[in-house]
């Protein structure tokens, strides 16, 4: 009994130690790459160059030490705000801004892997944007970035469109497969959002072969087996590259 207790504590200690080491190394890598995000003269603005043109000056909040969200957090905030405005006032101006930013991405998603014709891609853009208009009230900015929310709608609509094209006679829509989750604890929510931001940052460091496969799987909608056939790779290689990428992005598989 005692031994077990002591052994258990030792194992816990070792796990905690390595978790810390891992965390520390992430911070180090992050700082080496981007500079101290909280430091004076924050290099954050240079990172967000591409983002700035989409932001009004008034929209850029002061960078304070308390704001550890980083550039991506602020960027998503503009789109979250649009969704809030749409939900609250059926604000067409906000909708138009949202459309101009996301419609080209939705269209690119529809065309990825030349899975849909240009006409169908436009149809998908319309469908997704109408859903955005209708479902804005269900968006919870605490839970996810606006882009994640739009991505899941686009993914669901595209899957439904594929099934319609294949003449599936089904009582199910992809929204039934991915229902809106009930609200979780605030801590879990915060963690989820931080994870999203971390994934975005770490993705920049992924090797090209892993990015290529992730793009096939997620953007082109190819199964692991289809990706393997297209790239002329063994299925095992595709699976292990996906798993490696997920590991590098520090996506937690807790069970």
């Amino acid at each position, binding site marked *: 009994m005692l031994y077990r207790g002591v052994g258990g504590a030792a194992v816990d200690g070792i796990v905690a130690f390595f978790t810390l080491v891992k965390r520390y190394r992430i911070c180090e890598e992050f700082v080496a790459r981007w500079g101290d995000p909280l430091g004076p003269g924050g290099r954050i603005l240079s990172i967000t160059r591409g983002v700035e043109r989409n932001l009004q000056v008034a929209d850029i909040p002061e960078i304070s030490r308390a704001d550890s969200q980083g550039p991506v957090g602020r960027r998503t905030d503009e789109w979250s705000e649009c969704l809030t405005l*749409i939900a609250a006032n*059926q604000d067409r101006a906000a909708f138009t801004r949202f459309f101009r930013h996301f*419609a*080209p*991405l939705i*269209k690119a*998603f529809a*065309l990825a892997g030349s899975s849909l014709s240009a006409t169908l*891609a*436009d149809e998908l853009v*319309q469908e997704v944007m*109408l859903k955005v*208009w*209708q*479902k*804005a*009230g*269900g968006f919870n900015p605490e839970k*996810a*970035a606006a882009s*994640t929310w*739009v*991505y*899941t709608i*686009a*993914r669901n609509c595209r*899957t439904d469109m594929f099934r319609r094209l294949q003449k*599936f*006679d*089904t*009582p*199910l829509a992809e929204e*039934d*497969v991915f*229902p*809106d*989750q*009930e609200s979780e604890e605030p801590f*879990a929510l915060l963690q*989820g959002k931080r*994870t*999203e931001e971390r*994934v*975005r940052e770490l*993705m920049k460091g992924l090797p090209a072969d892993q990015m290529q496969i992730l*793009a096939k*799987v*997620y*953007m082109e*909608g*190819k*199964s692991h087996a289809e990706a393997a056939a297209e790239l002329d790779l063994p299925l095992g290689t595709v699976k292990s590259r*996906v798993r490696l990428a*997920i590991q590098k*992005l520090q*996506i*937690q*598989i*807790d*069970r």
Partner: protein
Amino acid sequence: MAKFHPDLDLLTEHAAGNLPLAQAACVSVHMNYCEQCQRTTGQLQGLGAALFESLHAAPVGDTLLNAVLARLDDAPPLSYATSPGWAAGKTPAILQRLMRGDFTELVWKKITGTLSISYLKTGDPNYEFALYHIKAGGRIPEHTHRGSEMTLVLEGGFSDADGSYHQGDFMLRRPGDVHAPTAVQSEDCICLAVLDAPLRFTGWQYRWMNPFLQLRAG
């Protein structure tokens, strides 16, 4: 709390929206019982969103914008007073959608003294999507799989040589896996099974049935 989960490959394919409808529905039912897989899927969707954001934007003209703006009046915002979502303890919403009623109202086809099957229609042309009802303590004759089989425990539990499974537990069997599941003694077991090829009984008492076992896909 579920102890057996879809592996990371499956969760990734699920989050990317690439699983066949019947399999996706089965994984979705597992999520109903499993917060961990919900969280992991959430993160895997975050990965999808990050890739989505970094796509090369395809030009979209004002014609399309105007077309959408013109349709907004016909698309009234949905109200979110009550969220459907996941609700533990209840029959998962996606199954309710396929069943119209509860388990007792389904048409059950008797296969052996202890096993009945009810086929649900998902519209997926390649997969059978069925509920298995095993009487308490009952045994499914030893069988092997010609294709893949996803199994998810909805009520009660069963065990086989590899372990014992309870509500929410998910298993993926591959071609050639042989097993003879036995339901727990205390209560009847209801499982969801998704197959892409019919079972094949291996025991001599039941082998004669094999030619009659057909996949009820659709």
